[in-house]
């Protein structure tokens, strides 16, 4: 019995690096796309705003699974080469969650009081300086709780990489399952779920730490806590 658990544990642990890599890669791409698309949603140029809107609505409007299948099964047919599963996964995770993140960035930038823009104009700062030196440093702090929720959604979405055989946690478990009697499935799913829970907790701990740093930078005492996740960040 304990041997079995040892085997299960070691098999699942081998899927962990892929899940973590997909999560971190996905988060990195998400952050980049969120800022690019989110700021583009506020651009003076109509064309830029429109293009960004198309990206955001396109990726929020279609299912993440469709995007995954499209990039993994359709795209190779069109371009003639196949993507490594992990890479395809990171691409989809980033593109999809970046579309949600764009709205977080847009909302946070718009939530900075107009008086801050005017203070910056009165000091003759250029538009880029206003954004980079005054508005974004304040907006980023506002974004952190929403990004925390978004990153946890992304972590959960890494399980979808099961469908493209990326050999991450979920798939390792499913490969193991058929060979075992039902009673032995308990440790598989319990360990899997606990791994995801642990990763989710780590993300939250990290983001809370950033929130505290951010709050200190803005000279606030305690970060404002929000118990409800913003629904725009919800789901796949």
């Amino acid at each position, binding site marked *: 019995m304990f041997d079995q658990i040892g085997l299960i544990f070691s098999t699942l642990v081998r899927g962990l690096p892929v899940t973590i890599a997909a999560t971190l890669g996905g988060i990195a791409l998400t952050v980049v796309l969120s800022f690019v698309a989110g700021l583009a949603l506020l651009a003076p140029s109509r064309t830029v705003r429109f293009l960004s809107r198309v990206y955001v609505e396109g990726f929020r409007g279609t299912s993440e699974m469709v995007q995954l299948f499209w990039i993994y099964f359709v795209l190779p047919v069109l371009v003639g080469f196949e993507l490594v599963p992990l890479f395809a996964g990171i691409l989809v995770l980033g593109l999809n969650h970046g579309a949600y993140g764009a709205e977080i960035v847009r909302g946070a930038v718009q939530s900075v009081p107009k008086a*801050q823009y005017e*203070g910056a104009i*009165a000091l003759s*700062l250029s*538009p880029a300086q206003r954004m980079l030196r005054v508005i974004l440093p304040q907006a980023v702090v506002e974004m952190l709780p929403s990004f925390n929720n978004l990153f946890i959604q992304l972590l959960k979405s890494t399980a979808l990489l099961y469908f493209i055989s990326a050999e991450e946690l979920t798939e390792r478990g499913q490969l193991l399952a058929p060979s075992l009697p039902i009673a032995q499935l308990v440790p598989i799913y319990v360990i899997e779920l606990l791994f995801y829970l642990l990763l989710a907790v780590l993300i939250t701990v990290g983001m809370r730490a950033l929130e505290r740093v951010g709050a200190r930078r803005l*000279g*606030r005492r305690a970060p404002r806590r929000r118990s409800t996740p913003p629904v725009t960040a919800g789901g796949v």
Partner: protein
Amino acid sequence: MDSHQPLSDAQAGTATADREMIRFDKVVKRFGDNVVLNELDFTVSPGEFVTLIGPSGSGKTTILRLLMTLEKVDGGTIQVDGEYLSHMERGGKLVPADEKHLRKVRRHIGMVFQQFNLFPNMKVLQNITEAPMRVLGKSRAEAEERGRELLEMVGLSEKVDAHPSQLSGGQQQRVAIARALAMEPDVLLLDEVTSALDPELVAGVLAVLKDIATSTEITFLCVTHEMQFAKDVSDRVIMFDHGQVVEEAVPEKLFTSPEHERTREFLHAVIDREV
């Protein structure tokens, strides 16, 4: 709109003996159907301290915001030190200013806001040094040295490393004044800079302003409800209503024997409120 008038006659005045720091020429400003400024004319000389008074909604803030280029004019022209603010010259014509032109002319002007508008993501000293370093191209050492001087001048030397949120309203406002001065403006705009403050903090801020007004060459355009302060420091007081000048005079005259009934009523109302 008269954005295509020839330059010659508009510029004629600026070359002559009375240099004008601020000139409003038939300035029109509307918000929708609400005509706030109706062909407003007035001028301010270099180094002058001018106080604007008038009932709520008469357009005082709007005048300052137009000068700070936070609003666009709907008609007429504004000049600062002989340079067009809302417009620029192109091929002998006046066309509406673009962002580049605005950034150039803005440098002559500073503003202190009712709500301070300090940047919470920067400590006190950085609030003051940021723009001199990035806009005027000063070195960090230079900017910080000047920043410390200014903080000493407004009596806040010990707050160099504080966060704006750790300061009282009066202290924040004094930092905001130092921040505006760090840009070495020719014109400083003050919009009810003490009305967001607790009463016991007002005197400190006004003392600092009075100090600056008497010791520098800066031209001041000030909106305030502090009549005693206005009397003490102003060279001239302009009474506005309905987007036009009702009357203007030296403070001794305007406050004691105003010519217009409207001014009398307004002063009565304000002084009643102060008692």
